[in-house]
């Protein structure tokens, strides 16, 4: 077991454990905090995958913005400080079945794929992921258009969210 593998297994455990807690805990605030844990784990995974920029973005955007947003929303929509009763609805059995089936299906599907056991190639020397990513995002024969469209999408979402959630006087 190399150190990398141990780190991987630890973060995988954190991820999955926190994920299960997210979907099963009765207290919503706890669920949001477990989500934060999951997201941290994913950030570590990104770091293991040499996607340095994404690691930072994951922490800043997902944890720093989205999870905080969840916490705000949870606080705004609570009648009391504790949720009561079951948090799983009547169809949870079917849902569990579906989840298992999905996992099984994906596993089988991927298992039949040749490249399933591939190992990582070495990074070329002088490879700067961030510069590559940056160039790709703004060069016209690469991904500048999705980039720009994504910014328009964010603007639309911003306006929409403000309008939908705003108080009408």
């Amino acid at each position, binding site marked *: 077991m*190399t150190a990398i*593998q141990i780190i*991987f297994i630890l973060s*995988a455990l954190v991820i*999955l454990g926190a*994920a*299960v807690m*997210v*979907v099963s805990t009765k207290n*919503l605030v706890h*669920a949001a905090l477990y*989500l934060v844990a*999951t*997201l941290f784990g*994913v950030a570590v*995974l990104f770091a293991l*995958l*040499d*996607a340095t920029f*994404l690691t930072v*973005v994951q922490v800043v955007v*997902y944890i720093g913005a*989205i999870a905080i*947003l969840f916490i*705000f*929303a*949870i606080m*705004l*929509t609570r009648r009391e400080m504790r*949720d009561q009763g079951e*948090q*799983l609805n009547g*169809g949870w059995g079917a849902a*569990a079945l*579906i*989840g*298992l089936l999905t*996992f099984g299906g*994906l596993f089988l599907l*991927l298992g039949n794929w040749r490249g*399933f*056991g*591939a*190992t*990582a190639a070495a*990074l070329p020397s002088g490879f700067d992921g961030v510069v590559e990513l940056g160039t*790709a*995002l703004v060069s016209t024969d690469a*991904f500048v258009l*999705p*980039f720009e469209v*994504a*910014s328009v*999408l*964010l603007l639309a*979402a*911003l306006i*929409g969210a403000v309008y*939908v*959630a705003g108080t009408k006087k």
Partner: protein
Amino acid sequence: MIPLSWYLILAAALFSVGLFGVLARKNAIAILLGVELMLNAVNINLVAFWRYGSLASIAGQVFAIIVFAVAAAEVAVGLGLVISVYRRRNTVVADELDLMKW
């Protein structure tokens, strides 16, 4: 060295857990939490395939960036809707929001 398969299985599991959360939770915000889990699973997959595939084509990371942006937008709007619905109907339990039934 970590084979690709470990990442993929992890992502599949995370995805399934997220799916269960979406389908089985009562609270609307919890449903959205499940959606976030699914999106993260997708991101892991994308970056893994980038790393274990052709490093030159940075499309995988770019896709992941886009997914970030979309996820952020979706969460903003979704939570805005939930808050708006809460104001009107005073509930966030998904099963109670059934105005669109027959």
